[in-house]
C-alpha cells in the first residue's frame, strides 16, 4: 500500500522509504516558529537547561527559524513589553533575521504571516510554538504545534520525535451555497466528530469543494483542525497553492502528494450543497446549531479578528454585509496582518467598518485568547470569527462566546443579535 501526504512528508523527513501509523520516527525539521508567548517560554527552557549544564551555543539553522510578535502586541503592559524586548535581544544574539516586529513593517499573527509571507511551503515539515500551527497545512505542508520544551529541542538539534498519525480523509463535494464559508464547513465537521474526534490524528481535506476553494478559505479549514484535537490538518497542493505562492516567495520547494493507493483510518464524505450558516454555542466549538435556530439571541459584542477570521477575504465578506449599515453592538475588526490591513484600506473595507461604527485595530491575537484589546466582562455575550469558546477564552470566565463565519458575525453586528446573513435586508 502507498502512503498519504502526511506519511510521505514524515517518511522523507526521517529518511525512510515507508512509515505507517504508530511508528515513531526522529524527523528533521524544515521550519520553526516562535512568538511572544512561546518564545520567552522557550528561552526559559534554555535557562533551565543551562543550569543543568546544557548550553545553547547556536541554533541548528537560524535561516529556518522565524519569529512573530502577535499575542500581547502592541505591548499590553510591562510584563508583555519585557517579553517582547527579551525576544528581540534573543533573536539578535542568535542571528534570526526573520523577526516580524510590530510597528516595523510587515507583522501580524504568526499563522497569517506564514502564508502571507510565503514562509511555509508544500512538502515541508514545519513546527510552531502555537497550537494553531496546523493552519499552514493548507499549503500542502505538514504543520504541527509543539510546546516550549519540544521547540527548544528543535532549535538546538533540528529534529524531534513524532508518532506517525492515522489520517482521516474528509471528502467534500457539492455546490457551495451562497453565504456559506469554510468556517461553516469546519464547524459542521467539529460538531460531528467532537473536540477529540481527531486526537493524535491527521485531518486531510479533498474533493471538488476543495479544488474550487481559495487559499485563504482552505486555511480556515486547516486552522480549526486544532479544535478537533488533530495533530495536523492538510490539503494536497495544487495550482491554487502554486499561484498563491508565486507572488510571495522565490524559495524552491518539492510538492508531495498522497499515493493513489494511500491508506486512511476513516473516510468521511460531506455533501455541502444543503449546508446552512453554522454557529458554535458556548462553551465548545463542537456545540453547533444552524444560525437561524439561534436568531434573536441578544449580543453585547462582535469580534472580527484572529488567524481564523481576519484574512483579506474574511474582511471582504464582513464588509459586504456591513456596507452602508450601522452596527448595533460594539464591533471590533482587527486585520490579521499589516499587509492585510493595507489591502483592506486600499479596497475601501476599512472605510466600510469605520463608517458602520466599528473600531478597526492593529493586528494582534488580542481578545481571541483573552489577552487584551477588548476582552469580555462578566455575563457579556460575544459573537466572534475566532476559533475557541471555552469558558474564559475571551475574557471573564462567565462571559460567553459564539463562533461563526465573518458573514454571520457581520450580520449579527448590524442586528445586535445572532443573525443568519440570508436574513439581512
Amino acid at each position: 500500500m502507498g502512503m498519504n501526504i502526511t506519511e510521505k512528508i514524515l517518511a522523507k523527513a526521517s529518511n525512510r522509504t515507508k512509515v505507517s501509523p504508530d511508528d515513531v520516527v526522529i524527523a528533521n525539521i524544515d521550519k520553526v516558529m516562535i512568538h511572544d508567548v512561546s518564545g520567552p517560554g522557550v528561552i526559559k527552557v534554555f535557562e533551565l537547561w543551562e543550569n543543568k549544564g546544557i548550553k545553547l551555543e547556536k541554533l541548528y539553522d537560524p535561516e529556518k527559524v522565524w519569529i512573530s510578535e502577535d499575542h500581547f502586541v502592541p505591548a499590553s503592559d510591562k510584563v508583555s513589553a519585557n517579553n517582547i524586548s527579551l525576544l528581540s535581544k534573543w533573536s539578535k544574539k542568535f542571528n534570526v533575521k526573520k523577526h516580524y516586529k510590530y510597528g516595523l513593517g510587515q507583522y501580524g499573527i504568526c499563522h497569517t504571516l506564514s502564508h502571507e509571507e510565503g514562509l511555509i511551503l508544500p512538502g515541508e515539515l514545519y513546527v510552531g510554538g502555537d497550537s494553531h500551527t496546523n493552519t499552514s497545512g493548507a499549503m500542502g505542508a505538514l504543520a504541527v504545534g509543539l510546546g516550549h520544551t519540544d521547540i527548544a529541542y528543535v532549535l538546538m538539534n533540528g529534529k524531534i520525535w513524532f508518532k506517525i498519525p492515522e489520517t482521516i480523509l474528509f471528502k467534500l463535494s457539492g455546490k457551495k451555497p451562497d453565504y456559506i464559508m469554510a468556517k461553516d464547513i469546519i464547524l459542521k465537521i467539529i460538531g460531528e466528530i467532537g473536540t477529540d474526534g481527531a486526537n493524535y490524528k491527521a485531518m486531510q481535506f479533498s474533493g471538488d469543494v476543495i479544488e474550487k476553494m481559495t487559499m485563504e478559505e482552505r486555511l480556515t479549514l486547516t486552522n480549526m483542525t486544532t479544535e478537533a484535537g488533530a495533530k495536523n490538518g492538510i490539503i494536497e497542493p495544487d495550482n491554487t497553492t502554486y499561484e498563491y505562492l508565486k507572488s510571495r516567495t522565490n524559495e524552491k520547494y518539492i510538492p508531495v502528494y498522497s499515493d493513489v493507493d494511500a491508506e486512511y483510518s476513516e473516510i468521511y464524505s460531506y455533501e455541502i450543497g444543503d449546508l446552512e450558516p453554522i454557529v458554535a454555542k458556548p462553551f465548545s466549538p463542537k456545540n453547533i446549531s444552524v444560525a437561524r435556530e439561534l436568531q434573536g439571541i441578544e449580543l453585547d459584542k462582535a469580534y472580527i479578528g484572529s488567524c481564523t477570521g481576519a484574512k483579506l477575504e474574511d474582511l471582504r465578506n464582513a464588509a459586504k454585509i456591513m456596507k452602508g449599515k450601522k452596527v448595533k453592538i460594539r464591533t471590533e475588526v482587527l486585520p490579521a496582518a499589516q499587509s492585510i490591513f493595507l489591502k483592506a484600506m486600499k479596497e475601501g473595507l476599512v472605510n466600510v467598518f469605520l463608517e458602520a461604527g466599528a473600531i478597526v485595530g492593529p493586528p494582534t491575537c488580542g481578545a481571541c485568547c483573552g489577552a487584551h484589546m477588548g476582552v469580555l466582562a462578566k455575563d457579556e455575550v460575544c459573537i466572534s470569527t475566532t476559533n475557541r469558546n471555552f469558558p474564559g477564552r475571551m475574557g471573564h470566565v462567565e462571559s460567553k462566546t459564539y463562533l461563526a463565519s465573518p458573514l454571520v458575525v457581520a450580520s449579527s453586528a448590524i442586528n445586535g443579535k445572532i443573525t443568519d446573513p440570508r436574513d439581512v435586508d
Partner: protein
Amino acid sequence: MTGKVIKYDIENIDTDVIIPGPYLKIHDHKELGKHSMEGLDPDFSSKVNKGDFMVTGKNFGCGSSREHAPIALHESGIQAILAPSFARIFYRNAVDGGYLLPIEIEQDIVKKIQDRDELEINLNENKIFNKTQKEEYLIKPFPELISKIVSAGGLINFKIEEQN
C-alpha cells in the same frame, strides 16, 4: 509513587481553564502554579497537596499548546494525571518537559476512584493499587519511546540520536 486523589469528573478540561490566557505572558513557574486550574476551580491551589494525583475525564488538556498548563499543574503539586485520554500537545509537553505523568486509564476506573482516595502507582507493572478502597486497576502502558523519555525525566536528558 503514592499520593492522594483530587478528582474532577469532567471531560475536555481545556488549557484556557487550566491556566487562563492573561497568564500566558508569565514565565515564572512558581507564579504560574498559583493560578493553576483557576478557570475551573478558583480554590484549587488551596485544595491540592504536593504529590497529589488528578483523576479526570477524557481529552484532558485540549486547546492550546501552552506549556504553562503542565508547568502550572506541576508547580501546584500534581505529580500525575489519570484520565481516559489526553490532548496530544498537553501529553507531549507533560512528558518531554518532565513535569508530570499523563497516565491513561479506562473510563470505568475513573468512575471507581473517589476524591481523596490514596493510590499507589507502579509503572513497572502498569498497575494502580487503591489503598483506600483496596482495589487494583490496570493502566495503559506508555509506548516504548515515551517510557524512555519518562525514565530520563524529560527530553533534556534523553539522547534522541540513539533512537534512530
